[in-house]
């Protein structure tokens, strides 16, 4: 919990890294990508903030945000229905910016008057492309204790394949060099082998400082907070890294989406992601999952509301999935309300919401290239 001296407001960028998973972000945004059988990506940072006592959270959405609005509702499931603060969704044209923003600077400039009018001393900013059970309060405490101007969370990891292939116009990843906790260099899209200090895009800084930075950058036409501001700010900002050793599931491509889901079939990973603090999500009031006589299930994770009559192995089933008699499902991720009809046989498939795999249909992707079936599609 936050103590009374260090109050912080939260800002989340739900569209960050949309471009890394074009298939999934085509009809939605990164934040509302379903993950781990009953969650959406935003649930992790949002629950983390809520659990850390941050109860004034702004979502700076850019586009495709209907699914996110539907998911969040009033924010009740995250305990974010508050008279003061709570959950605020800022559409891109809420104030002065144009229809879509490019980069954090213009997104933040769009809510600059809001930021000025708030009372919290600190700001915590995060993206939604990482499923992590993050203790924001601990990071805030470390930031205050260190005397740094800006603290950025990172984890030590090899670069994900998805990042190595990044060539998008506005998708950047950042790595650091550190001396102690102090960041001495920041690199953008620097493809290196071996362990890197990879930014988690979680920032803590004073609200007043953020306003100053954004105002100065915006008038100079700068767009990207890290690339255009922080990378050139070593002379006037003390920037610290905050090393995170917990479990991190980073979505960097469709393949990594597949892998990160599958990794949760290992109890050690599942416990590492979920056991430290609760992760909240939208309630759907499904009945428990039903295994009908003749069903066969091995090594799966399934949410409530599924009906399983066929065979399923090494798979993740979201809420309301139906696997009919004689159907075989192996190494698949089936999102909400997918129906696999009788006798179908599928392997290495990711189906989006409400997809239908027809009777007796056989379909195979591969380990390295899972096939993606779009929302509402019938195969």
């Amino acid at each position, binding site marked *: 919990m936050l103590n009374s001296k260090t109050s912080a407001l939260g800002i989340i960028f739900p569209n960050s890294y949309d471009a890394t998973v074009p298939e999934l972000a085509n009809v939605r945004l990164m934040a509302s990508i379903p993950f*781990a*059988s*009953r969650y959406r990506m935003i649930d992790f940072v949002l629950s983390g903030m809520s659990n850390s006592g941050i109860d004034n959270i702004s979502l700076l959405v850019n586009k495709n945000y209907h699914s996110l609005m539907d998911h969040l509702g009033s924010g*009740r499931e995250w305990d974010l229905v508050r008279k003061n603060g709570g959950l605020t969704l800022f559409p891109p044209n809420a104030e002065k910016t144009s229809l879509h923003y490019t980069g954090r600077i213009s997104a933040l400039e769009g809510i600059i008057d809001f930021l000025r009018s708030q009372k919290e001393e600190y700001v915590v900013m995060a993206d939604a492309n990482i499923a992590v059970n993050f203790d924001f309060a601990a990071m805030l405490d470390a930031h205050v204790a260190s005397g740094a101007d800006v603290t950025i969370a990172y984890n030590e990891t090899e670069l994900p394949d998805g990042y190595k292939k990044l060539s998008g116009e506005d998708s950047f990843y950042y790595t650091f060099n550190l001396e102690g906790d102090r960041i001495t260099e920041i690199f953008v899209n620097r493809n290196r082998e071996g362990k890197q200090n990879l930014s988690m895009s979680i920032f803590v800084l004073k609200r007043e400082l953020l306003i100053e930075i954004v105002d100065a950058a915006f008038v100079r036409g700068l767009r990207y907070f890290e690339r255009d501001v922080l990378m050139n700010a070593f002379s006037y900002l003390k920037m610290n890294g905050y090393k995170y050793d917990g479990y991190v599931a980073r979505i960097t491509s469709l393949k990594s989406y597949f892998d990160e889901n599958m990794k949760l*079939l290992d*109890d050690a990973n*599942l416990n590492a992601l*979920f056991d430290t603090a*609760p*992760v*909240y*999500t939208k*309630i759907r*009031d499904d*009945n*428990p*999952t*039903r*295994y*009908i*006589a*003749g*069903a066969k*299930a*091995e*090594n*799966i*994770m*399934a*949410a*409530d509301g599924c*009906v399983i009559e066929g065979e399923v192995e090494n798979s*993740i*089933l*979201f809420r309301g999935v139906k696997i009919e008699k004689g159907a075989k499902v192996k190494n698949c991720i089936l999102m909400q309300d997918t129906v696999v009809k009788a006798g179908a046989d599928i392997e290495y498939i990711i189906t989006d919401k409400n997809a239908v795999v027809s009777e007796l249909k056989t379909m195979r992707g591969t380990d390295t290239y899972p096939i993606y079936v779009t929302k509402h599609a019938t195969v």
Partner: protein
Amino acid sequence: MGKEMIAMLLAGGQGSRLYALTQKLAKPAVPFGGKYRIIDFPLSNCVNSGIDTVGILTQYQPLVLNEYIGNGQPWDLDRLNGGVHVLPPYQQASGSDWYKGTANAIYQNIAFIERYDPEYVIILSGDQICKQDYRDFLKFHKEKNAEFSVAVMEVPWEEASRFGLMVSDENDRITEFQEKPKNPKSNLASMGIYIFNWDILKKYLTEDEADPNSSNDFGNNIIPNLLRDGRRMYSYHFSGYWKDVGTISSLWEANMEVLDPENSGINLFDEDWKIFSRNSGMTGHKISKGAVVEDSMITDGCRVDGTVKHSVLFAGVKVEKGAVIEDAVVMGGSVVKAGAVVKHCIVAENVTIGENTVVGAMPTADSAGVATLGPGVTVGDGAKIGPNAMVSSDVEGGAEVC
């Protein structure tokens, strides 16, 4: 503006025939069907029937029930005007009274009902598993121009003498009421669900309260009095699934029926008539490699490494490798350790069943008991719990309980 109909839900029942399950829990709060509590059924029926004001009469062990109901949000009953209200007995200037009977419980809350100025009041029972559209019932009540209607179920004649029976004419008008009679004249059993015109109910409650010899009960007093006065009373035939889960065996049976919706008639997989409940908030359940799950219902948070056949597992149940569960109801948070064999029984919440323990047994010609482990009980490794056992305190390793 007044409400057309509000609901008063009788949830004070102790449920003494559920023994270990209701020692610290009111009967309506008893878990059911994988992720529900019994009270979810009448509450969900209300919301699905468009009733947005529900008073819940509590008395016995209300703590869990109060906490569970909270502000009513899971049932969409957190309303500005109306919503769900838990109504325990309270202290008045003239002294405080426990609810003396079902009628007295409503009588003591006349002021609550009057706030909503309803035309009709539906009296519900908090200990039945039933999916019912109360709109159809109200429509019937209005069409008959009734002052009182009771929902009735046809029961087999040979069992009729266990019930309160409504004898009615060809127009469903009630002519006689028989409470558990030796010689039944009807096989229409009262479900304990009534619709009253509020003015009539208020009048009879007030009269009943003034009668010092009354037991202040709907079945024993109010209904006979209405009959005495020749009020317009009708039986509404309900033919859907209905079960009074007042005993261990009926509770077990109803849970097993949930596994067979095609034949039992209790379908929880009904998008048009959802049963709402307070959510566990746990991750999806996991079935690991080598586990066997057949003909069962598994809820969020479960981890199954063993074998589960024809059973209902509530949220967060762990079944370790080599454990076997069959024909069993295992409630939230319980752990079944390696090698344990758990059959034909009810395991309450947060029970720990030790390694290689035997709990219950499949029915034989001589015995069809449903072994029951009460909430929070720990059964030590290698213990044996007989098929008729009712366990409400810890059992040491290796011990035998019959």
